């Protein structure tokens, strides 16, 4: 669906930002409208995705992981095979093309684990646009390899020392930096969050996942999935794959949040399951916060899901009942990570391992004629050192 004129999906979304950014958001909104109606824009986007990213990504039937508990087909959408190893690049390609159209001289981005930072640095290098990345000082320390990769790609990484020194603070800092240089700078947000038009725009750039997957399921299996499962931090890979199936009423949509140490504990990142409606980073959605409206510290084993907010469209899909949102703990995700690698010869990202853990549980309730489609949003190379530390 499209948000309304003020950027709302139902009662979620909108634009809650300092006035200094409103003109830039309006300019972006106008450019999105024009570009999205320009076949030449999509033609270039598709050609970059085909030749640089390696799309379409395949769908692949995983034969062993869920087989002990289920006779349903267990099918993966292989976003882990994209250039840079995750779905993130679908979005940064689209935003870089927009930035170039708008004549912007610089890209800025926030990053948590570094995946979106790497995807932004990659398109910056490809299109010859300078890139500044804002990253919490704690994450800079934890994700030294990704910092180095961004630097190799020519980006400048700025450690953010405010607040909890993680993704939430990196995002706030990127907003501040945008406010200071709003004339020549394009802010590449990495998920379906932020002020209108970001949640809508990012979803449109990730929608390719769902459109491809729907066609591939029909061609390969002669049917639509019974269930589509994707992990949700900010929610961009889920928004992308859901968009392909949201109009197919018979297809159930499942978003899997990170429960951390338990969705009802303080150490969680499950915004839709444990949060309340509030305003964060420019839009109204579910937020993990105190009764006084202070944003809570979050925890997840997976840096990509470790965020106190969630995209407003997911809040809407939850309220409307079109999608269901569940959560998976650190321990369950870690178990799925190892089990999936052994059964399938694919090391999933810890984010995607959350989707896999729930999908197997779900598949146990499904039968012979069902097809569970999981968005394998990224590969797990980045997580190997952490998993090794946690399990040895």
């Amino acid at each position, binding site marked *: 669906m499209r948000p309304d004129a003020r950027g709302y999906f139902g009662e979620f979304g909108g634009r809650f930002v300092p006035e*200094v950014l409103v003109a830039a958001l309006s300019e972006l909104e106008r450019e999105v409208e024009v570009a999205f109606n320009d076949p030449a824009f999509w033609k270039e986007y598709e050609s970059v995705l085909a030749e640089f990213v390696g799309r379409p990504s395949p769908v692949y039937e995983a034969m062993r992981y869920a087989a002990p508990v289920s006779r349903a087909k267990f099918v993966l959408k292989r976003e882990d095979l994209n250039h840079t190893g995750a779905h993130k690049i679908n979005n940064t390609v689209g935003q870089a093309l927009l930035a170039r159209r708008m004549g912007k001289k610089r890209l800025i981005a926030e990053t948590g684990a570094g995946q979106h930072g790497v995807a932004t640095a990659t398109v910056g290098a490809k299109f010859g646009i300078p890139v500044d990345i804002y990253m919490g000082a704690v994450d800079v320390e934890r994700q030294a390899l990704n910092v180095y990769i961004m630097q190799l790609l020519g980006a400048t990484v700025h450690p953010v020392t405010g607040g909890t020194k993680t993704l939430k603070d990196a995002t706030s800092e990127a907003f501040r930096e945008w406010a*200071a240089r709003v004339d020549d700078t394009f802010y590449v947000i990495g998920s379906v969050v932020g002020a209108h038009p970001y949640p809508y725009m990012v979803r449109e750039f990730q929608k390719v996942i769902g459109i491809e997957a729907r066609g591939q399921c029909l061609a390969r299996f002669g049917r639509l999935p019974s269930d589509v499962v994707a992990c949700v931090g900010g929610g961009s890979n889920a928004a992308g794959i859901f968009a392909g199936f949201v109009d197919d009423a018979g297809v159930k949509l499942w978003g899997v949040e990170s429960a951390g140490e338990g969705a009802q504990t303080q150490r969680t990142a499950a915004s839709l399951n444990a949060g309340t409606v509030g305003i964060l980073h420019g839009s109204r959605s579910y937020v993990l916060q105190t009764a006084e409206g202070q*944003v809570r510290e979050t925890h997840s084993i997976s840096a990509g899901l470790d965020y106190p907010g969630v995209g407003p469209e997911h809040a809407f899909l939850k309220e409307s009942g079109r999608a269901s949102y569940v959560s998976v703990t650190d321990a369950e995700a870690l178990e799925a990570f190892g089990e999936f690698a052994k059964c399938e010869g694919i090391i999933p990202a810890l984010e995607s391992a959350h989707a896999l853990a729930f999908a197997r549980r779900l598949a146990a309730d499904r039968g012979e004629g069902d097809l569970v489609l999981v968005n394998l949003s990224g590969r797990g190379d980045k997580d190997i050192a952490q998993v090794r530390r946690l399990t040895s």
Partner: protein
Amino acid sequence: MSLSAIFKPGQLAFIPYVMAGDPDIATTRAILAALAANGAAAIELGIPYGDPLADGPTIAAAGARALANGVKLNDVLSLVKDVHAKAPPIILFTYYNPVYQFGLAEFARAAADAGAAGVIVPDVTLEEAEPLRLALGAHGIEMPLLVAPSTPPERAARIAEQSGGFVYVVSRLGVTGAGEAPNLEPLRKQIAALRAVTKKPLAAGFGISTRAQVDAVRPIVDGVIVGSGLIDAYSGARREEAAGCVAKYVTSLL
């Protein structure tokens, strides 16, 4: 009383900003007294928030200190209730989420009960302002809105029309902070354009922290808002000396 009454012809209204509860409520109380004694026409009182998108490092750190000290919105309202009779008009400066969680109508009632004269919410845009403006208006509290250097003239005119008491003119791009000075030429144009469409007083803020910067905007605006410079003036000092530092800083400024 409308906030517009704090602006006197031929006189620059001095509107200092102070973070409530930085580092504790007692210190803020002493600072408010020092500001009242040193020519503040009104006082912006910040409600601590952990994710202040419009603020630079100085005010963000002040808010973090207050939060670390356990200061909550109700503590700030109690402080206002205690001091407002002896202080110039108090304008609460808060991000939207704490207000949203409190409930708009409940917040308006509580702010009025405490004796606040105005409320500024930097992340509520013109398009989102109406519910809170109406809730506050029902209790006689005004909500000044902000115009930025990037605001197009037609939009600035609509903001000025909806703005309560005065118009807060952001004097440069970016966030609050004593670092970069206002960009005077665009500011002059912005002010001239606003004068053509509104009779409301205009107060400039962001990047104004020295006497030279105050003097530079003095001829073109009706009021000046100073926050980060003031916080810098006391944040290194011992708590019992903070009010003295503020008095000295204000004297150097005006």
